[in-house]
């Protein structure tokens, strides 16, 4: 056991000696794109999550409508089989909700009275909202119907597209990481050709010879991951300087958040594992060629 530990320490030292800062930097720059992109998307997602993507219809009553009229309409709506969920939003509650949105309290305060009507929020059982919306619009007491969840769906689709794009980018750059490590290890094997040949002649096992190269791939990948996080962090911090100014002009405190610790650890871990994979591919391909003659 102690021998095993000592040999691993030795391999680690040898790998650290041979690790190229430049290679780690290349990997880091490449990986900072998907890592930073992911952080951006996650920040936007937390905003978008507050928006609903369900097939929703909102019925607005006339601002002057009495509560009794609203109750009568509610009873009628409850009888409609096409309606799944129904929620009554009294005008007082709507005002409270609006007041909780950043930047608006000042505006509402300036108005002096509640400009909002009572409303029903309906979740349709049907996919096509147009027919239902048209029917509901004819009901007495309904002032206007809003049925366009389309923009929300478009936003969701866009976010989904960006997500797929990021994953593709990450996969592509991950493959690049494997290739970079493959090549680093290949060059390292070539420069250590004599040492490897002699080691084989004097009884080094394959495992002993391979170990430093595995460590090299692992460490180089993980170092690239750490550098990527650093670049992404710096880029987000720079963006946030601008975002803060913009958000404050809207009375919002929105900032792009950095990756959660779990995600950040994942970036480093994955980069390390991909580096290891590249090293393994390279070692199994190139080390067999070196046999003592």
């Amino acid at each position, binding site marked *: 056991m102690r*021998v095993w530990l*000592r*040999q691993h320490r*030795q391999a680690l030292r040898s790998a650290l000696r041979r690790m190229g800062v430049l290679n780690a930097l290349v990997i880091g720059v490449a990986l900072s794109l998907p890592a930073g992109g992911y952080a951006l998307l996650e920040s936007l997602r937390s905003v978008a999550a507050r928006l609903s993507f369900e097939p929703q219809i909102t019925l607005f009553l006339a601002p002057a409508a009495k509560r009794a009229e609203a109750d009568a309409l509610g009873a009628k709506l409850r009888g409609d089989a096409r309606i799944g969920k129904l929620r009554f939003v009294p005008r007082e509650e709507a005002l409270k909700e609006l007041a909780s949105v950043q930047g608006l309290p000042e505006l509402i305060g300036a108005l002096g009275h509640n400009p909002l009507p009572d409303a029903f929020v309906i979740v349709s059982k049907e996919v096509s909202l147009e027919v239902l919306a048209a029917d509901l619009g004819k009901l007495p007491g309904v002032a206007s119907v809003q049925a366009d969840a389309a923009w929300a769906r478009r936003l969701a689709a866009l976010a989904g597209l960006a997500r797929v794009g990021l994953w593709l980018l990450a996969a592509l750059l991950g493959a690049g990481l494997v290739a970079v490590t493959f090549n680093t290890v290949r060059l390292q094997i070539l420069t250590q050709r*004599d*040492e490897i*040949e*002699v*080691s*084989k*002649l*004097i*009884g*080094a*096992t*394959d495992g*002993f010879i391979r170990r430093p190269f595995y460590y090299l791939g692992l460490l180089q990948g993980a170092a690239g991951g750490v550098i990527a996080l650093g670049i992404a962090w710096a880029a987000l911090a720079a963006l946030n300087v601008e975002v803060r100014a913009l958000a404050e002009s809207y009375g919002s405190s929105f900032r792009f958040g950095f990756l959660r610790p779990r995600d950040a650890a994942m970036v480093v871990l994955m980069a390390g594992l991909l580096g290891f994979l590249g090293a393994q591919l390279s070692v199994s391909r190139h080390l067999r060629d070196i*046999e*003592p*003659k």
Partner: protein
Amino acid sequence: MLSFSSVAKRYPGGQEALKDVSFALEPGELAFLTGRSGAGKSTLLKLIPAIERPSAGSVIVNGQNVGALKRAAIPYLRRNIGLVFQDQKLLYDRSVYDNVMLPLAFSGQTPHEAARRARAALDKVGLLGRERASPVQLSGGEQQRLAIARAVVNRPSLLVADEPTANLDAESAARILDIFVAFHQVGVTVLIATHDQALVSRFGKKILHLEAGKIL
């Protein structure tokens, strides 16, 4: 200790390097393998640490049939054989001391014990004062002695040398041979290949003479 029975070696392309070679060395025996260049000496020596595999017959080292060894078992065979090459195969990017330490990296000694063994091996070949030197700073004879120190640092029971005195002046060559004899005297089995017939006859030891792939 070491025995060849009816060993033949044909290289791809049909060249027949060894034909029906049989001999045996007792534990602790010292023998010379002689013959002109191209007679098959190097091929014969390469069969012992499984650098090459025999085409026919069997090579037995320490009771193990080398020709039938699995790839994974070869490193453990080699750790018990000290190999000295004509071109030394030293690593020129590190010191004399580190060259000798190389085989100790994977044999499992404590660092303290490894250092002690390395110094003992260098002492035996008369290089104890040159530990910090680079191999390029050594003379041809000293480089060959360094190669011997590296070969014996793991205390192998069998020492195999291919033309260890080639390219050396008579005095250096004699000193190299004295070192081998010293190891033989402490019980190590030694096989030395050389084309220098005159040099070996004065020892009065077993001589295996190869000619065109056959032992005469």
